[in-house]
């Protein structure tokens, strides 16, 4: 993995070489704060917690994370730099992991920049900062799972937009599977055991457990497994289609 760091660095700084990164961060912050105050009614809830913020993130990520991931492989394939990349002494795994981690780190930066929300609730009351920390951690891992799906869909096509749309669709399904409203509908005609399994496959049930402050290793293992599956598919697709 000697070439991991140069690859990571190039990819991470690459986000900031174009104005897209700044636009992305600004819109993400507006949207997340907007959701927290106007949809989540942070003030009216009269509680010093970031629950209203965390509850909307799975939906915001649905759009934002595929937007961060769509460029990663589609652009390499469109511009032909993939041929340059894979004739340098770089392994496929190195490149896949470096790109993923660069995107993940960028999402981490965007997430960290929501810190004024944390300052606000601490100013207004006495929240349980342990729970908030767990919430951020859950968000970060969930973002990673979304991103691994987006990396995979980005590798499928030379067109970023196609990668983006496929990413949104797959992530949407994974969110739906664990979303209470959706599983309630399913419960009306499917046996309870099956519903349990289905909701375990989705993102939301695992995220909610963590965001309530329950740092269960099983939930973290779930997200890490989701990342590994996404990146493995990514590698398979690249091996098959890098030269086409």
């Amino acid at each position, binding site marked *: 993995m*000697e*070439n991991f*760091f*140069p*690859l990571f660095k*190039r990819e991470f700084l*690459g986000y900031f*070489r*174009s104005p897209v990164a700044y636009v992305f961060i600004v819109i993400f912050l507006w949207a997340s704060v907007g959701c927290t105050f106007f949809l989540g009614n942070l003030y009216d809830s009269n509680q010093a917690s970031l629950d209203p913020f965390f509850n909307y993130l799975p939906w915001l990520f649905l759009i934002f994370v595929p937007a961060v991931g769509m460029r990663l492989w589609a652009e390499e394939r469109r*511009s*032909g*730099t993939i*041929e*340059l990349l*894979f*004739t*340098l*002494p*770089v*392994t496929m795994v190195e490149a896949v992991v470096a790109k993923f981690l660069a995107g993940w780190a960028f999402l981490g930066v965007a997430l960290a920049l929501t810190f004024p929300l944390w300052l606000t609730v601490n100013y207004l009351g006495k929240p349980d900062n342990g729970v908030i920390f767990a919430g951020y951690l859950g968000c970060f891992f969930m973002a990673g799972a979304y991103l691994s799906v987006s990396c995979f869909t980005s590798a499928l096509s030379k067109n970023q937009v196609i990668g983006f749309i496929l990413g949104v669709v797959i992530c949407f399904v994974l969110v739906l599977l664990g979303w209470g409203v959706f599983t309630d509908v399913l419960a009306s005609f499917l046996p309870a055991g099956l519903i349990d399994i289905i909701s375990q496959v989705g993102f939301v049930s695992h995220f909610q457990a963590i965001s309530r402050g329950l740092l269960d290793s099983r939930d973290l293992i779930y997200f890490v497994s989701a990342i590994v599956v996404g990146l493995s598919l990514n590698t398979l697709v690249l091996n098959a289609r*890098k*030269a086409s």
Partner: protein
Amino acid sequence: MISVSKLVKEFGAFRAVNGISFDVPKGQILGFLGPNGAGKSTTMKMLTGFIEPSAGTASVGGKDVVKDSLAVRRQIGYLPESAPSYGEMTVSEFLCFIAEIRGKRSAAVRQAAEAMRETCDLSAVWNQPIETLSKGYRQRVGFAQALIHDPPVLILDEPTDGLDPNQKHEVRNLIKNMGSNKTIILSTHILEEVEAICQRVVIIAHGGIVADATPSELRQQSKFHNAVTMKIAPNQIEKAKALLSNIGGVAAVELLGIDNDTLRVFPKQGEAIALRISELSRKENLSIHQLQVEQGRLDEVFRKVTKSDNLNQKSH
């Protein structure tokens, strides 16, 4: 240094490379010639480890391109077709990135990049994003990227494509000067380029090798090899044509030129006929204004070998 044996690449039902074999010794500059779609780029992609062969083997510096791909890639500097690079990076950022990937660390990174700034004459655009550069500069950046680790083997896919005549000349000089201690394969369809820099030419068509020789050997296969072109006083032209046709070793005599004052005499199988012609013209008092012996024409040989293969393919 480079050894290719029965290399095959299939894309679905299409055979892009059909069992080619050749060796390139250390220090040789090999020109890879062929019509578009002949399999040049595909072969280069297999040598550089970008795609895996469907069958056959290839090795670079004794290392197998499939089993020991990373070791092969470390020895190679590769300029892919149309020199792709990361457009949003500046030239200096891009070259530093490549230097890092090529194993340079800390101060050596800048040093390697700066050395390329000199070699490839990139000072004027050093801090500009690559996407804003002209085609010629982009090609030079691609060249710099391939040379930055001073590799023993260079593989260049159409290195002068899209350059103006001055830039072409510079790139050719650059390649020629490196030739003594590097093994180079370059693909092109510019024939003068092959004559200018390559010690050996491999022509491929439809995935197979149809010629493997030095440029001068190839020229000898031309029907123009040793042909004599002469300008004669107009009143003697008919007489000369008849006389020349009867010399031993002459295959044909052709009338050329706008003023119908030039004859071209083709020899049988490249025989040297110039001396016989000059003896004849002295004896017959032909007044010759100009006389020129042709070396042979690569473009004609190129067409001949790539087209005859075409016919064979169709008759299968």
